[in-house]
């Protein structure tokens, strides 16, 4: 059985091709101004990897904040359900899935079957999402991918107003004027984000294992801060940014089996 999961995020779109429960293709593209077209590209590339054609696909399922713009005839899957399903399929002991994307952060509690039980979401404020790191990287004139490694060099964090991207930017500019060290500022950025994300998790109750997914899971600086904050080691699957798309593909497979 062949299904495709499409995750239309605010910044990138991701596609996963699933064949009999195995991932056989994955690809992503920048959402840009035309997420529909970007998704078509990502799907085409993932299918090419798998040596498959569009007509081989039995079911498409879409998730992500722009899922209403997904191409092809498809069903939809909530982002929380997709996270829960894929999280438990990748790491069977997962009971709390944290998904930190470019503009959103979610914490999902689930059972051993990967069925979502409860969730908390932040979609109204940039301070708890990847956009915060990006804005601070711009203000610091540091490449986004260098923020994490740089932050690991710091022993302490600089004091910044981290509750808001706009205030954070002003603070970072004054800290640079005062010639504070960049690693310490970077660490403050990640500590602040970890604070916000961990408070979401605490609202659900900390149920190990805690699994971190989404694009921001690839950032070593954020992971270090979150581990410190939670006092445990979060588990991260191999392709954390494809978890949403995988969840959609898995649920699509269930829908084919169930005859839906």
């Amino acid at each position, binding site marked *: 059985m062949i299904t495709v999961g499409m995750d239309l995020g605010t910044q990138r779109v991701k596609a996963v091709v699933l064949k009999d429960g195995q991932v056989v293709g994955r690809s992503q593209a920048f959402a840009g101004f035309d997420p529909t077209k970007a998704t078509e590209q990502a799907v085409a590339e993932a299918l090419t990897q798998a040596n498959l054609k569009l007509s081989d696909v039995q079911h498409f399922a879409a998730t992500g904040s722009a899922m209403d713009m997904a191409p092809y005839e498809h069903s939809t899957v909530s982002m929380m359900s997709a996270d829960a399903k894929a999280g438990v399929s990748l790491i069977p002991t997962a009971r709390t899935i944290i998904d930190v994307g470019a*503009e959103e952060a979610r914490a999902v509690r689930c059972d051993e079957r990967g069925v979502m039980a409860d969730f908390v979401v932040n979609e109204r404020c*940039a301070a708890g999402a990847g956009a915060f790191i990006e804005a601070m990287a711009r203000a610091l004139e540091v490449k986004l991918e260098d923020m994490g490694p740089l932050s690991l060099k710091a022993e302490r964090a600089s004091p910044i107003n981290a*509750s*808001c991207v*706009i*205030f954070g930017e*002003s603070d970072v500019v004054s800290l640079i004027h005062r010639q504070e060290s960049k690693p310490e500022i970077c660490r403050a950025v990640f500590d602040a984000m970890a604070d916000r994300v961990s408070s979401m998790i605490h609202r659900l109750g900390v149920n190990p294992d805690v699994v971190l997914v989404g694009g921001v899971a690839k950032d070593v600086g954020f992971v270090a801060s979150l581990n410190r904050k939670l006092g445990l080691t979060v588990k991260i699957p191999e392709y954390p940014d494809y978890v949403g798309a995988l969840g959609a593909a898995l649920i699509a497979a269930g829908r084919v089996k169930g005859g839906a």
Partner: protein
Amino acid sequence: MADLTKEEFWRWREYHRVMPKKWSKADIITAGVDVGSVGSKAAIMVNGEAYAWGITRTGSNSPESAKKALDYALQDTGLTVGDLKYIVGTGYGRVNVPMANKAITEIACHAKGANYIWGPRVRTVLDVGGQDIKAIKIDETGRVVSFLMNDKCAAGTGRGMEVFADLLQIPIEDIGDISLKVEKEPDPVSCTCVAFAKTEAMGLLRKGWSKEKVLAAYTRAMAVRMANLINRVGYEPELVVTGGQSKNIGIVSRIEVILGVKTLPMPRWREDGLDPMVAGALGAALLGKALYEKAQKA
């Protein structure tokens, strides 16, 4: 054609003012220096009456900003710092006002300043500064009874408005008026995060919304937040608005509509002079006078 990319739409006007009034060395001359996150304000009072003030942009260094504001206020008065009997520092950078005899929170200073400007009828003060929004309940003497503050989010603050001015390329001082130029008030936007505003506003403009309508939808959402803060602290008549956003008619008039009340107008004998943006500095100078007199008696 003008180069739009070079224009700084966020930049508001710095100015200073001296009232036509005489002073002598025998007078109690005090100053309040309010170093905010965005603007630094200094006010000089002679025997507890407003005499001169200066408003300037806060730089990256608080002590320098404090000095700049105070020098600006003293300009054309014939006074020097040495003539000031007592100086109170307040605002976000109050601990970094080197010339101050004492630092007092801006909440107490805005309360006192509102009481000075509008008189004893004021019971609720909404202070919208560069980086925070405060709803303050005060008594008839201008003392703080209770307050609530939102210092976690830029939506609705002066700093957030600056970002908006640049985003929509509208001079910041025109934002309030322009936000009112809509035939029908649009629904408030659901997401007020200033960091997301760029994508949101672009999306709305692409949908064919006018700049006025986008601005109205945002201003409405921000006014709703402020009205909620006032309701949570417990609204009591009369209401006034202080801080830089008191000049944003789009915000103030919408708060009035949402709460179904009228804010107090500037008293006629003061409407040509006092600026609600210096309420905190005026309050600081007044509290400074009281502290000076107490010290003299002791």
